[in-house]
């Protein structure tokens, strides 16, 4: 049950990653709306793809309680997923609009 909550928190961290990246690197920003959307999809993509290495929500809760180390890794990956998605969406937008 708690793994469901973890996956939602993870998405929020992804949004945070996207917004932070957009704030720090303004030239890559797609605005608050664009960065939020990119953050969500980046976070979900990264956790779905890399979470299978052992830090997806199910693995975090496998022992019955929260494995803090795996939880932190999950959040970090999600944060970077969100940030990278903002960068990639900028690149995509630039390429498409050349």
């Amino acid at each position, binding site marked *: 049950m708690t793994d469901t909550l973890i996956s939602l928190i993870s998405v929020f961290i992804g949004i945070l990653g996207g917004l932070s990246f957009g704030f720090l690197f303004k030239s890559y920003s797609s605005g608050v*709306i664009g960065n939020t959307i990119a953050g969500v999809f980046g976070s979900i993509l990264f956790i779905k793809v890399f979470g299978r290495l052992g830090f997806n929500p199910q693995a975090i809760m496998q022992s019955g309680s929260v494995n803090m180390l795996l939880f932190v890794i999950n959040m970090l990956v999600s944060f970077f997923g969100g940030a990278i998605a903002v960068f990639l969406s900028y690149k995509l937008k630039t390429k498409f609009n050349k």
Partner: protein
Amino acid sequence: MEDMIFYDRLQFAFTITFHYIFPQLTMGLSLIIVFYKGLYLRKKVEKYNDAAKFLMKIFAINFTMGVITGIPMEFQFGTNWAKFSELTGGIIGQTLAMEGMFSFFLESSFLALFIFGEKLMGQKLHFLTGFLVFLGSWASGWFILATNAWMQHPVGYEILDNGKYVLENFSALFTNPWLLPAFLHNQLASVVTSSFVVASIGAFYILRQKNIEYGKLFLKTGVIFGLISSLLVAFPTGDWNAKNVAKYQPASFAAMEGIFETEEAGAEIVLVGQPNMVEKKLDNKIAVPNILSFLTYQDWDKQIVGMDHFEEDELPDNIPALYYSYHIMVGLGTIFIGIMGLAGFFLWRKKLYTIKPLLWIIMFLVPFPYIANITGWYVAELGRQPYLVYGLLKTVDGVSPTVSSGNTLFTLLGFVALYMLLGLLFLVLVGKAIHQGPKHQTH
């Protein structure tokens, strides 16, 4: 066990209610976007293209929120409702997987192309991507409704010795007599929501004296789409659905209409009344005689069975909630027809943009189609009780025996907190998009 079922149902009801705020807008909005893009291709007037792109931005925010709130739904099938998934996975797994594989990917891929690819693709292909987003979102509704239709009226299945349900006839899932009326009713109701949102944005711009050209366009489109869809939701699709409930779920029909006792010659339609579950009657009832029999069977004197005809354990377990949900949905639907009819009349008389009280009403009416849509789904889901799969699998037999009520309550509280944040974020983003306006992206 009672506690466990209560919290499992409460959690599912909360998460699905919050989730359905978003898809009901995306499905209807995609149709209006395709309409604007088509108008632009035909007339080459830039404001139609701007309007399509502006609404796609709102679509994208909604779609993203729908994706986030859809995550717990996926998990809950496995956690809270593991027994249900184990027994019926061979059937509902088909349609749910098709929803993910075909519709979701179609919708999300072409959404990105629509947002980023206008210059690269040219206008005709840009229109096509918009159309494919529309197709994806409606196909998504089709597969979800096919799943729900099987739960409401199971067809084409076989029960194995181990109690599991498997498909005996794949095409029966999509020719289920429950599916088409439910799909049309649901999709048109989502067009009602979207029309009201678009009309509300238009009214807001006109009242604020900002983006007036777009305000008029949105108001006109919203009123025309809103009037047509509100009428079609009531008739023929709502009528068709009600007849299906009377035919396949007569106990639910009696409960939602508030018929406690079978009347020998012709059933009345209840306009107002409060179910009294102790005395098994409606208090303070206002009803019109014989109308329900006529609406259901086109026969003024046809008997409609009441709740007294059924065993207690065959009746929905929350009759007042079902009854009120149904009457709220129908009542709001009637109000929508009235308001949109009035707005349509003033639009025709070329006075709509100047009647401020009506503009204020249209602007503040926006939460009500959401309420009508959600109560409509409550009618379907509460009416199916006490079954998960009507007549086959009771709700009590579908829960996971190992998940404690405390655990479910804890995660429910967590969802409430996170969804409040998400709701806030959604309002900020949509508010920002509306504040920027349609001109923002091109000028």
